[in-house]
């Protein structure tokens, strides 16, 4: 049917690694191949990459996983924080109405399915950067502006976080109509994923701010551990564990059409590392209410200790699920703080008010950015993000 130079069809069942005619898609050989190559590149010290089948290739270590994008909830809420994260807020263009928002969410759904399974997004001009098993999660949320543009009623308790006495909020880190929380085991895959998502949003929305963070949730032997913030504090000890009833009660909304959704508050918390470092260890531990070496709660934390004020017992039982990522830039260091809860008004705000009123750590920490979003319910294969909220009718 074709001339001899016609591109050959892909090898059946073996899409394999990036090549002239194929991009790596679900080829398990391709996955293993790239992982080995990555390990080799990390240890070869400038030597050429080991070729396929090279018996000198080190065994793959530290493989990541593929986090299936499907489910009742978007999976990135409950997965542990991997090494790197970017949180991107976007603002809708004036013409983006409910229908257009649906088109954007369908495009993003395709992107999420592709990127999280190690495939290039449709139309990607750098398909080789879509790495498999990258611990990649992409979590999508709607801010107040998107709810308004689409004529959606917000879930109960979704409100703007009121100003706090210690806040020094900057517009450049605050607000936004949409949010993407993209997390991965390494930065190249992460940056590529963010670029594809933001690029595909161009007809509908523009990037408002973009915050990067990093986290070490793994000890030297590769075992999970609770990571530390840049004050050296074990951070997240008291956060409900995914899979527990407490976690589920804390984060998930059970109110149609938002069933399976949650809310996210993003706070950029600047931390004064220099003045913190002037404190003696006992004063640091007293301010936190925990020991610094293990993060264990002090037997009798003082009335202004952070761990006491943030505790549910001090907040009428209110809890949040917290995820942190550190940031360090040219002029500032701190914590990119993400709080998940079913109700901003019922959970985040009272805890934040307690802390704002008395937390000893306020001396060294300052919120310089704040934004809140409704994290959309999850989607199943064949469905799209937000279909249950925006209506699942066929477009057009």
């Amino acid at each position, binding site marked *: 049917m074709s*001339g001899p130079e016609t*591109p050959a069809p892909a090898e059946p069942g073996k899409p394999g690694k990036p090549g002239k*005619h194929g991009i790596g898609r679900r080829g398990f050989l391709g996955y293993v191949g790239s992982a080995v190559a990555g390990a080799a590149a990390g240890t070869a010290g400038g030597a050429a990459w080991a070729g396929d089948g090279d018996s000198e290739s080190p065994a793959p270590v530290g493989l990541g996983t593929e986090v*299936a994008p499907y489910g009742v909830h978007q999976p990135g809420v409950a997965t542990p924080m991997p090494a790197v994260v970017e949180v991107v807020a976007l603002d809708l263009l004036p013409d983006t109405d409910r229908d257009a928002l649906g088109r954007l969410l369908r495009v993003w759904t395709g992107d999420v399915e592709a990127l999280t399974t190690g495939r290039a997004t449709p139309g990607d001009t750098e398909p080789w950067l879509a790495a498999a098993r990258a611990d990649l999660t992409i979590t999508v949320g709607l801010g107040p502006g998107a709810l308004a543009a689409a004529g959606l009623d917000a879930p109960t308790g979704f409100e703007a976080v009121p100003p706090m006495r210690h806040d020094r909020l900057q517009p450049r880190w605050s607000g936004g109509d949409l949010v993407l929380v993209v997390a991965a085991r390494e930065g190249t895959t992460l940056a590529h994923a963010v670029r594809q998502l933001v690029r595909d949003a*161009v*007809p509908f929305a523009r990037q408002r701010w973009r915050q990067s963070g990093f986290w070490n949730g793994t000890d030297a032997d590769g075992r999970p551990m609770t990571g530390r913030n840049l004050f050296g504090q074990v951070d997240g000890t008291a956060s409900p564990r995914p899979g527990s009833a407490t976690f589920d009660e804390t984060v998930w909304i059970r109110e149609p059409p938002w069933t399976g959704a949650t809310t996210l508050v993003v706070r950029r918390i600047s931390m004064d590392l220099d003045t913190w470092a002037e404190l003696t260890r006992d004063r640091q531990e007293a301010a936190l209410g925990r020991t610094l070496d293990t993060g264990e709660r002090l037997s009798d934390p003082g009335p202004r200790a952070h761990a006491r004020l943030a505790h549910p017992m001090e907040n009428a039982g209110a809890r949040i699920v917290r995820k942190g990522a550190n940031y360090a830039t040219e002029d500032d260091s701190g914590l990119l703080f993400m709080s998940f809860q079913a109700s901003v008004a019922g959970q985040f705000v009272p805890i934040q008010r307690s802390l704002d009123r008395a937390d000893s750590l306020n001396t060294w920490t300052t919120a310089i950015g704040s934004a809140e979003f409704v994290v959309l319910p999850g989607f199943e294969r064949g469905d*799209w993000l937000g279909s249950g909220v925006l209506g699942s009718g066929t*477009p057009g």
Partner: protein
Amino acid sequence: MLNTAARRPWTRTLLPAVALVVALAGLAGCGDEAEPAAAAEPGTVTIEDPWVRATVGSEDPTMTGAFLVVDNNTDEDVTLETASSPVAGMAQLHEMAKVDGEMVMRETDGGIVVRAGGGQLLQPGGYHVMLMKLKQELAPGDEVELTLGFSDGTTLEVTAPVKEFTEEAGHYHSPGTAEHGH
């Protein structure tokens, strides 16, 4: 008709001629528990990752390419034989081929074969659906319906997002072939 071959609710199988075979064996053998239950439904032909190149600002806004992935999860080879779209007065299946030392784009002779158990990429620089005599401008953010007909009688309808494609215009039209001879 309920549609197990669909990628999304807006992807519809109009005439599924291939019986759905519940044969999950073999799909779970990757040793990764986090892998989705099935990469593609068994016993069916499916379309994934469809997209259409925007025409806004292009040299010739009367034509563009549609790209997608065909997965053939059946035991028989199938041939993608026809394509159509409400936005196009004409649609053809095209390939790139080297003729007298030059890459040219031309209509396939008899369609695009997708082998049993295999997949086929339709992508810039290779096989693609050529949408011609476009009735409207296609802007990034639009959605386009595509209907694809296969040799086994299956007809799949998909909704493809229109995306900007930033590679040099005419990328999938090799030099000297802009007229296509159509």
